[in-house]
């Protein structure tokens, strides 16, 4: 056994299910599918007057990495606008080793996925969905 991927922090993020569920009357909703693996994320957001996220909720039908990423995202999304979310995306990309630079809480938890190319889209899917919702 050489279990590098499912480290405690990732499992904990997934189990926390931060933001799991739906919003009533969301300002925007976006759905993203990964056709290769069948993962699916639906993201609801409520925005304030300046395009900043006031509330967020997600329904994830997908793997633990996707759930953990949606949890991580929900835990830090409130108060951010599109540019702020894009910053999180860069953080995730850095954790995955796809961009140089230091990475921060909570996405630094995904560093073990850097060695698993085929799973990186699972981490990015919620971020893609949120980007769609904000655009």
């Amino acid at each position, binding site marked *: 056994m*050489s279990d590098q991927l*499912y480290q405690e922090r990732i499992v904990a993020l997934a189990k926390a299910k931060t933001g799991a569920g739906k919003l009533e009357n969301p300002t925007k909703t976006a759905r993203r599918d990964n056709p290769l693996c*069948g993962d699916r994320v639906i993201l609801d957001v409520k925005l304030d007057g300046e395009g900043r996220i006031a509330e967020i909720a997600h329904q994830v*039908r997908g*793997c633990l990495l996707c*759930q953990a990423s949606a949890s991580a995202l929900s835990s830090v999304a409130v108060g951010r606008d599109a540019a702020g979310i894009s910053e999180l995306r860069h953080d995730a990309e850095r954790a995955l080793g796809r961009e140089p630079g230091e990475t921060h809480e909570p996405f630094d938890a995904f560093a073990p996925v850097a060695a698993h190319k085929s799973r990186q889209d699972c981490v990015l899917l919620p971020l893609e969905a949120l980007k769609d919702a904000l655009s």
Partner: protein
Amino acid sequence: MSFDVTAVRGQFPILAEIIDGLPVHYLDNGASAQTPLAVIDAVRHYETTGRANVLRGVHRLAERATESYENARAQVAAFLGVQPMEVIFTGGCTAAINLVAFSYGSLLKPGDRVLISEIEHHSNIVPWQLLRSRAGIELDMLPVTTDGRIDLGALSRLLTPRTKLVSLAHVSNVTGALLDVRAVVEAAKAVGARVMLDGAQRAPHGPVDLPSLGVDFYAFAGHKAYGPNGIGVLWGRPELLDAMPPFMGGGSMIGRVTLAETTWAPSPRRFEAGTPAIGPAIGLGAACAWMQALDWTGAHDHEMALVQRLMDGLQRIDGTQIFGPASLQNRYPVVSFMLDGVHPHDVAQTLDSFGVAVRAGHHCAQPLMDRFDLDGTTRVSMAPYNDNSDIDALLAGVAHAAKTLR
């Protein structure tokens, strides 16, 4: 005596590899099987001592290549119990089904119907959807029973005089269920429909006696049957093939080409446009010969014993559920299961860290997943070279996932 799995394993070099410190417990044979030295050597022999284009050359390399290529056709034909000239080499199983959908499909009229099932692989769904938009045919779907078999009870309702073709998986790539071919052929013939079998998951488990099945078309993939990539087979009844127009155009499939019009060569050449996949075909011929030399009574018992060991082991892990036939009757060694609260991809990923290769997801059968509202399954697909250690490593991995990921 009993089946000698060690001797079989010895013929597959990859099974002795250590990858990142882990052995190779390869249980993803339904996606692609491994290939024996006999196949690798046959291709290398062609590449290093007799490589040339086929059919048209008069020099000795061309004669060697043509002979090897046609010999491969004969080896495949022997494996299927048919005549060599009835065997068409294609780029794969998907390409073989598309050939029928384009060529036989072009003979269909708006309102004609094709019957498939909800259990089919995308490769036996999408070509018919594309034909539907090209030709205005209708597509019907046999439902699937809760134990993962095509529900033949619906045949009488869904077969109509407008049904021209029934195209079904001989063995399901998700549940391992074997089709009751006799029942399908009988019902289809009664309304004058032709029957095609997608044999992708059946061919890797030993010779197929096509004449006794009574079907009209049969397709399978080389890489799942221990052969190379880039090669597949379509068998068709000669009288049907002869009446079918070409699919792709190019060299070798013509009678005479003029600028105004072109006549077609007889089958199989009509359907083998361009330079064929000579090396891969030679490899597949060797794979068929390799399969034919195997003791399949012993191999099948061995494979089914592995299925039993797997099912027993899974039952001892809390929250597992098998999707597919529970008995060993009329099934092949493909087993799908779910682990409550753990996504199939996470099961498969955990198994990888135990050196166990399986497949997780929709298995190119999204309609089936939708029908049973599944996120996907974890699929264990076996070959004669698998052994108890493969199953035990898998069970240890599933137990670990159950403990840590939920």
